[in-house]
């Protein structure tokens, strides 16, 4: 009797195939990942050259990708050591940003929702942030009020930070592995 093993094999194959599909559309935004410290960028996702994984992920999530001619999106879910960003800890984002007409830094929870807070603040832009004397930014993600560029984390267990560079003259589309230097993300202390 060969029918049962065959049916079993088909079942396993379908579960396997669709399982990998589900995993890749929920966890990835395309294959052309550019790493810059803890930041991940997908320059080709916002072009007609977007790969099938990027197209599938955007079709599922309903997101409109940021077009490369418009700007470039970087996401960080970990700090520079690879530890997940924890909203119960204090995290600092320090460094000089690449040249761009403007940039925005947005703090979200794990699912990409903005975090409600009394200050009504969910991010900084190049126009609002207070720069250090050397032109670097120093943004603090913390559950408690901090001096300077403070973003309230609402003590969420996992955070996601989006950095969008608009009208940036540099191009990652060539697939250069060395992305421009982006601010470093370090964990200071946990409560």
């Amino acid at each position: 009797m060969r029918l049962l093993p065959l049916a079993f094999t088909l079942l396993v194959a379908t579960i396997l195939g669709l399982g990998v599909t589900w995993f890749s559309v929920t966890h990835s935004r395309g294959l052309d990942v550019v790493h810059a410290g803890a930041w991940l960028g997908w320059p080709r996702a916002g072009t007609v050259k977007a790969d099938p994984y990027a197209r599938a992920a955007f079709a599922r999530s309903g997101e409109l990708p940021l077009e490369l001619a418009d700007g470039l999106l970087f996401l960080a879910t970990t700090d520079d050591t690879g530890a997940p960003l924890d909203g119960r800890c204090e995290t600092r984002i320090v460094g000089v940003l690449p040249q761009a007409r403007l940039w925005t830094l947005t703090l979200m929870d794990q699912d990409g929702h903005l975090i409600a807070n009394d200050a009504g603040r969910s991010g900084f832009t190049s126009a609002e942030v207070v720069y250090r004397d050397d032109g670097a930014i120093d943004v603090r993600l913390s559950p408690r009020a901090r001096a300077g560029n403070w973003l309230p984390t609402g003590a969420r267990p996992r955070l996601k930070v989006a950095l969008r560079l608009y009208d940036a003259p540099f191009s990652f589309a060539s697939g250069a592995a060395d992305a421009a230097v982006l601010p470093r993300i370090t964990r200071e202390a946990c409560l």
Partner: protein
Amino acid sequence: MTTFEDLREEASGVAARLSRRLSRFFGRIAGSLPRPRLSRPHFGSPGQALLFAAFAVVLGAIAHIVSILAMPALAERNAYARLSELMESNALTLLPDPSPHEQVLPMMDPAFVSAVCLYDLSEAPLKVRVPATADYTSVSFFTAEGLAFYALSDQAAGKVIELDLMTASQKAALPEDEEITAADRLVIESPSLEGIVAVRAFVRERGTRAIVRRQIEAATCAPSN
């Protein structure tokens, strides 16, 4: 080849997790149900089992590739579907500012005022006119499946961003004499009949959001005849 290896690693991780969850699930319901009379599938010799395993991996890979490629066409909650619940075609609609409680589309930049226009070129080409605000203003185009195919910012366009969006056949049917004037207007070819135009303007200071919203309200998106 790294991608393939990554996928294989992902696949084995998912499979392990799935089988663990499945066995836990079946273990739980086994107590309440009479034990089914089906025995475990009998694969015969180890060589045969290996053959079935190889078969399962190949079929699984095919199922994975087919489902990834079909996803844009089959996804029911993509950006176009979400937006078409809220608005009519061929008219610009200002989106509410993203807030912790409400987000029309995921991952929208809260520092921007956004407006979208769902277009349908089956009747006539579309004319998009966006007066540039004091700050960064951009217009980007997506197909109904969410593929980004064109974007333009105010710096490239000047005071008013004016674009004509049409299909390849509509572009080919443009009268000859209009071709000359077409130099000063931007003609964009849409790869699909339906899609999304997104107009976005940067809000430099929070206090100016209302002003920027009013400026973007003046933008239009309408059939050109």
